[in-house]
């Protein structure tokens, strides 16, 4: 998978930790996306994978990641579909290294 290689991207990793009910925060994050960027959903943001009202960003070529500890805590392990890559804490660190910078949307 793209996130497993070690070349550094010139793109940005966006980290978001609020429930998708915070529409404005999500819109703000989506407005900041370049093709090739990634979004890591952590903490309450992992609810994106079961929220039927969540609509993904319209920007092309965005990778979506979910933090494993957070989906497990919320009983969502079986719900995350192919749209989302599930990563653990080590994967979180790897992503931060692979992308040129991170922006936290909190």
């Amino acid at each position, binding site marked *: 998978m793209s996130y497993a290689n070690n070349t550094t991207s010139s793109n940005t990793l966006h980290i978001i930790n609020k*429930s998708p*009910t915070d529409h404005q925060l999500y819109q703000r994050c989506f407005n900041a996306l370049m093709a090739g960027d990634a979004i890591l959903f952590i*903490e*309450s943001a992992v*609810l994106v994978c*079961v*929220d*039927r*009202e969540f609509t993904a960003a319209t920007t092309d070529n965005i990778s979506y990641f979910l933090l*494993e*500890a*957070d989906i*497990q*805590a*919320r*009983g969502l392990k079986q719900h995350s579909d192919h749209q989302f890559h599930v990563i653990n804490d080590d994967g979180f660190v790897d992503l931060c290294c692979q992308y040129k910078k991170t922006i936290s949307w909190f």
Partner: protein
Amino acid sequence: MPTNNDQSVLLIISNPPFYSASNRETLDIGLAFSAFDIPVSILFIDDGILQIKSDLNSEQLAQKNLINTFKALEMYDIQDCYVINKDLERFNLSTNALAIKCKTLDKDAIAQFIQAFKTVINL
């Protein structure tokens, strides 16, 4: 719903689990008020419904899972817990997936429901 609305209290929980201290602290209000014989009802709304999913498991997080405390509600005579049908649909849940017994309300019935209480606390 309170039959005697003289001292009845409604607690509204709208935050998701593991979000902040507010769900725990709202629950603690419920337990304390019950000990004073104040009739307490709880309305779980929006993301709040996720707080009582029976499959929450905070082992990997350094956080307490409140589910057992919520289960204690019945012992404390807080038997009136409500969820909204629209929230069940939104998260594809049935009331069987919840750790405590809840009655369901339609979204359009919320306003009428709330009217019956003397005090509403919404942290």
